[in-house]
C-alpha cells in the first residue's frame, strides 16, 4: 500500500527535521544595522525601558538636544521593561549595542564587569559629574570605574492609600516611630474592615524589601566583597511575618500574589486599582500609582526605621545612563548623557520621571515647576535624605537572578508547600550558587 510507505518515509523525515530544529533556539539574533550617517553627521542610538509617557517626555528632551546639536541625530529605542534586558543582552553580544542606554539595579555592575560599558573618565570633558549626588553616583561606580550616571534619585518606601485607611476607619501611622508589628496590625485592621477584595497591604516580599529589612538588623543582602550578606534567620523571620499576614488575610492569598507577580504595570496592581492600603515600592512609582488609582497616595517611611539597630532605607540611583564600550561616537554619546543629567532644559520635560534629578542645581531650578505628585515625591526624598542609612551595596555579577529566586520561593512559602526555615536556607544557598556561577 502506497500511503503506508509514504507515511513511514514522511514520518521519519519529519521526525529528523524536527529534531534538528530543536537546537535552533540558541541562534544569535542580529539587530538593526547601524543607521546611515549622512554628510559627516553622527547618529546615536539611545535605548531605554518604560511606558509611552516616558517615551514622549524623553523624545521632547531629545528634540531640544538635536536642535542644539544639529550634527547629532538620535534614534530612540523605547522598549517595555519585560523584554528590555533580553534585548539589550542580545544586541551587546552581537556587537550591536545602542550607544547610550539605561541600566538599573545590579545591571550596571554586571555589564561593567563584563567589559560592555565605557569608562566615563575617558569622556569627562564632555560629561561633568560635579553636581551629581555622591550616593547616587556610587551606584554607577564599580571596580574603581565610573560606568554610569544616575538618572535620578529614588528611595524604597511605603506607598499608602489614605482613602482605604479612611474606609476602614484606621488612622494613618506615625511613620517616624512605627514598627513592623504595627505594619502587620494596621494591615490586618484594614483588611478586616473593608470589602473582601480590599487588603491592608500587598505582599511585601521583594529583594529590595529584604535588603531594607536586613539593613535594619545590621546586615545587608550582599556584602562589600560580593557574597550573600543576609542571614537565614533574617529571611526566615521575614517569611514568618509575611506568610502569617497572607494566612490571616492582612495581605492577599497566595494565588492572587502569584498572579500579580507577572503583572508589573501599575494599573494592574492592587494599589493601582485602589484595592490595597499599603505597598512597599520605589518613590518614583508614586506618580504612576496615583494616576492609576486616582487616589491621593502618600509616601511613608518604611516600618522599623527607628526601632531597630540601624535605618534600613537608602537613596539610590533609580537608573543610570551608560555608554556602550564599543560605541563609534563616545564623545557625542557623552554629550547626550551630559545634556540629560545636567541641563535644566532636559529636566523641564523629563522632570522626575527617572527619579528626582541627582544634579542639585537642576533640581533647584525645576522644583517650582514640578506638579503636585512629583512635589510630594521630591519633598519626601528631601525629608528622608538626612535619616537614611549608608549607600546600598549593589549585588555582584549573578545577583540579577535574586529577584527570581525570591519570587519562586515566595510562592512556595505562601502556598504552604515549603516551611519558612527551609525556604530561608534554600534562598541563601541558591543566591550564593548564582553568584558563584556569575
Amino acid at each position, binding site marked *: 500500500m502506497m500511503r503506508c510507505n509514504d507515511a513511514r518515509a514522511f514520518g521519519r523525515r519529519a521526525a529528523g527535521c524536527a529534531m534538528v530544529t*530543536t*537546537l535552533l533556539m*540558541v541562534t544569535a539574533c542580529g539587530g538593526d544595522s547601524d543607521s546611515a550617517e549622512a554628510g559627516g553627521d553622527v547618529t546615536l542610538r539611545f535605548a531605554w525601558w518604560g511606558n509611552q509617557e516616558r517615551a514622549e517626555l524623553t523624545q521632547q528632551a531629545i528634540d531640544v538636544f538635536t536642535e542644539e546639536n544639529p550634527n547629532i541625530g538620535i534614534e530612540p529605542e523605547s522598549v517595555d521593561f519585560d523584554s528590555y534586558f533580553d534585548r539589550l543582552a542580545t544586541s551587546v553580544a552581537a556587537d550591536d549595542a545602542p550607544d547610550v542606554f539605561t541600566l538599573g539595579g545590579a545591571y550596571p555592575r554586571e555589564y561593567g564587569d563584563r567589559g560592555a560599558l565605557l569608562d566615563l573618565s575617558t569622556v569627562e570633558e564632555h560629561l561633568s559629574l560635579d553636581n551629581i549626588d555622591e550616593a547616587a553616583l556610587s551606584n554607577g561606580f564599580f571596580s574603581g570605574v565610573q560606568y554610569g550616571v544616575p538618572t535620578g534619585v529614588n528611595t524604597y518606601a511605603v506607598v499608602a492609600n489614605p482613602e482605604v485607611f479612611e474606609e476602614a476607619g484606621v488612622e494613618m501611622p506615625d511613620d517616624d516611630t512605627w514598627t513592623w508589628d504595627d505594619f502587620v496590625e494596621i494591615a490586618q485592621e484594614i483588611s478586616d474592615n473593608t470589602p473582601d477584595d480590599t487588603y491592608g497591604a500587598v505582599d511585601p516580599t521583594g529583594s529590595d524589601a529584604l535588603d531594607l529589612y536586613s539593613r535594619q538588623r545590621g546586615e545587608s543582602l550582599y556584602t562589600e566583597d560580593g557574597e550573600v550578606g543576609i542571614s537565614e534567620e533574617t529571611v526566615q523571620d521575614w517569611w514568618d511575618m509575611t506568610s502569617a499576614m497572607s494566612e490571616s488575610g492582612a495581605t492577599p492569598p497566595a494565588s492572587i500574589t502569584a498572579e500579580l507577580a507577572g503583572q508589573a504595570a501599575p494599573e494592574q496592581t492592587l494599589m493601582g486599582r485602589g484595592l490595597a492600603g499599603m505597598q512597599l515600592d520605589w518613590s518614583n512609582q508614586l506618580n504612576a500609582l496615583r494616576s492609576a488609582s486616582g487616589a491621593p497616595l502618600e509616601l511613608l517611611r518604611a516600618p522599623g526605621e527607628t526601632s531597630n539597630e540601624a535605618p534600613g532605607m537608602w537613596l539610590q540611583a533609580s537608573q543610570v545612563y551608560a555608554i556602550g564600550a564599543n560605541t563609534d561616537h563616545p564623545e557625542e554619546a557623552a554629550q547626550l548623557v551630559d545634556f540629560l543629567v545636567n541641563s535644566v532644559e532636559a529636566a523641564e520635560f523629563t522632570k522626575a520621571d527617572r527619579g528626582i534629578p541627582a544634579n542639585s542645581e537642576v533640581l533647584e531650578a525645576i522644583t517650582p515647576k514640578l506638579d503636585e505628585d512629583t512635589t510630594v515625591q521630591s519633598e519626601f526624598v528631601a525629608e528622608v535624605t538626612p535619616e537614611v542609612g549608608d549607600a546600598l551595596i549593589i549585588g555582584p555579577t549573578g545577583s540579577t537572578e535574586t529577584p527570581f529566586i525570591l519570587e519562586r520561593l515566595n510562592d*512556595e512559602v505562601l502556598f504552604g508547600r515549603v516551611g519558612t526555615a527551609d525556604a530561608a536556607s534554600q534562598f541563601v544557598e541558591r543566591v550564593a550558587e548564582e553568584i558563584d556561577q556569575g
Partner: protein
Amino acid sequence: MRADRGTAMSETTQRPSESETGDIAGGGSPAGFVDRHRRKRGSLAKREGRAVFIFLGPWFIGLVGITIGPILASLYLSFTRYSLLEPPEWIGLDNFRRMFEDERFYAALQVTVTYVLVSVPLQLALALALAFFLDRGVRGLAIYRSVYYLPSLLGTSVAIAILWRQVFGTEGLLNQVLAMVGIEGEAWVSHPDYALGTLIVLNVWTFGSPMVIFLAGLRQIPTMYYEAAEVDGAGGFTKFWRITIPLLTPIIFFNLVLQLIGAFQTFTQAFVISGGTGGPSDATLFYTLYVYQRGFGSFEMGYASALAWFLLVLIAGFTVVNFWAAKRWVHYGD
C-alpha cells in the same frame, strides 16, 4: 504530465544529433560511438547536476547558515562559559556536570516530561475520536474540519496564551461560569497545582492538525474491508478495533512522533502565561523556558547550550525508542 514528458523526449532526441555531427568530424569506431554516447550522457547529467545545486542553493545556504551552523556553534558553546558579553572560555564538561546537580534542571525535566506524557496521548485520542466522527459523513464536513483545525493554527500564538491567562485567571471566564453554578473556582493559572494543567488543556485543544491527518488516513481505508467484515457479522467496535486501528497505525505513529517532538519544545505558551518566570514556583518551568532563562536571563549561554544539547539527546532517545517500539505495533501492510 504527458505533454511534459513529450517535450523532454524530443529534446533528448534532438541533442544527440547536434553533437553527433561534431563527433563524426573527429572520426570514430563503433567503440568510439559507445564512448561518445557515454560522454554525452555525462555532460547532460553534469548540466542537470549543476541545475540541482542552483535550485538547492537557497535551501542549502539556509540549512548551513541557519540550522547546522548554529547547532555546531551551540555544541562548541556547551563546553564553554559564555556570558554573551565576553568571549567564550573553554571549561570542558563542567556545564554537563553542573546540570546533574541543578535542582531546576530536574524541575524543568519533570514539568516537561509530565506535560508530554499527559497531553500528547489525550490530544491524539481526542483527534482520533473527532476524526472518526467526522469521517462518518457529517454534513458540512469542510466547515467542521476548518473550525476544529483553527486552534492548531492559533494554539502556539502569543494572543492565545494571553487569552488563556484571562480565561483561567482568578476572575477569568472559567471561574465566572463556575460561579454561576455555585462553585468557587481556583486561581488556575497561578496555583502551582493547576498551572501545568491549564497548559495541558491548551495543548489538547490544538488537536486539529493530527485530526486532519487522521481524517485523511481514515478516508483511505478501503470500504471493502468493512463490507467483508460486515458479511462476517462484525459489529461496530470489532470493525473499529480490528480494521480501522490496525490500518491507521502508521498514521497514529506519525502523529505520535510529531506531537511528542513538538510538545518537548513547548515554549511560547509557558513563557507568556507565566510571564517568562515558569512560575508559580516553577510549576510551568518548561525545559525550553529554562534554557531561555539561563541563556538570556542570566547570561549563561554556555550552560544554556549544554541544556539544549541534553534536550536534543532526550528527544532523539524518545524518538529512537518510538521507532523501535513501532516495529511491534505499527502495521504497514507490506
